[in-house]
């Protein structure tokens, strides 16, 4: 008797999950397809206005057109980020042994020229290999290191420390900087899409990087968190299960 009701319950949940998934796919399709044409029109016709009539308009009118175009571009980028982020759930992980130290090194050399690197104090500990999707884990390193570099840019002696530890269930990797840091009171906003803890004037960035990091690590069955002190720096951790 109990088994039958349990089976019924599972069937019902599966059905609901299926419907939710269909809704989701439809939403994704609308996002990637239907929103693009109006956006192209906003941007395109603004540029046409500038091209055809720019010389008849004064400086302020031309500036206003620039603002419209810049905002259309921003929405375009956000739509692309949302589409990519929402596709992550369906992605299959290609699991293999990943040499995390090499990967972190590779990312650093992509992000910094030798000359820029000389301005940083960089230390990389002994990082254990882990099982993961090398392409996606590279995105994680790139994002965390990019942030460490970006938020150190106003410091006189920037430093980046990459470390490793392990607990009973997972390998834990960390990226620590002595940059701007942030107030832990707002840490719940860190990994949400389009959330930023600094103004655009202070630091650029779309506010999508850490949302991607979180999705990738969750897909690997791990977790991600951070500790920070304003003006002293921050440390980002992510764990990958054994």
């Amino acid at each position, binding site marked *: 008797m109990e088994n039958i009701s349990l089976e019924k319950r599972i069937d019902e949940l599966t059905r609901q999950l299926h419907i939710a998934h269909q809704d989701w796919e439809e939403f994704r399709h609308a996002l990637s397809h239907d929103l693009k044409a109006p956006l192209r029109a906003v941007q*395109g016709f603004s540029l046409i206005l500038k091209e055809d009539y720019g010389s008849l308009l004064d400086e302020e009118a031309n500036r206003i057109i620039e603002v419209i175009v810049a905002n259309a571009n921003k929405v375009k980028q956000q739509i692309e980020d949302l589409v990519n982020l929402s596709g992550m759930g369906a992605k299959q992980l290609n699991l293999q042994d990943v040499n995390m130290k090499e990967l972190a090194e590779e990312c650093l050399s992509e992000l910094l020229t030798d000359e820029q690197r000389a301005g940083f104090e960089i230390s990389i500990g002994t990082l254990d290999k882990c099982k993961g999707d090398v392409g996606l884990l590279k995105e994680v390193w790139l994002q965390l290191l990019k942030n460490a570099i970006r938020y150190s840019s106003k410091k006189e002696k920037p430093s980046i420390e990459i470390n490793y530890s392990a607990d009973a269930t997972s390998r834990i990797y960390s990226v620590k900087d002595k940059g701007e840091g942030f107030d832990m009171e707002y840490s719940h906003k860190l990994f949400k899409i389009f959330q930023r803890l600094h103004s655009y004037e202070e630091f650029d960035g779309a506010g999508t990087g850490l949302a991607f990091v979180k999705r990738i690590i969750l897909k690997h069955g791990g977790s991600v968190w951070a500790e920070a002190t304003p003006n002293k720096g921050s440390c980002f951790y992510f764990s990958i299960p054994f």
Partner: protein
Amino acid sequence: MHTYNEVEIVLVEDNPSDAELTIRALKKINLSNHLIHLKDGAEALDFIFARGAYSGRNINHKPRVILLDIKMPKVDGLEVLKQIKEDERTKSIPVVIMTSSREQNDIINGYKLGVNSYVVKPVDFGSFAKAVSDLGLYWILLNEKPIE
């Protein structure tokens, strides 16, 4: 459009803004003189098969290229493509799908139905205009059409 028998580019696009942007890009490279803009799939089929409002057209006069949107009211782009490629009289007309989505299924089905090219419309207007003029130059000036 003076005469339907001189049409070289058939633009099938239901979104008036996209159509205007496309025509503008072609006009800049002087390729908009022999263009007809049709606003949905049903109208496109009437034109291509010389039916309805276009029954006076000579079906043997083949345009150099058909630029076809996928998502349209009434008959969609893939259905238009299917009918063009299934008919001996029209199957040699080059058809280029221009669409906003990178949907894998649409791309696969497009090629299965015999599309000659599949282009995803860039959102950015500059890239869009460039893509349209590249397409125009290729299909009108570079590509050789079969002797009729």
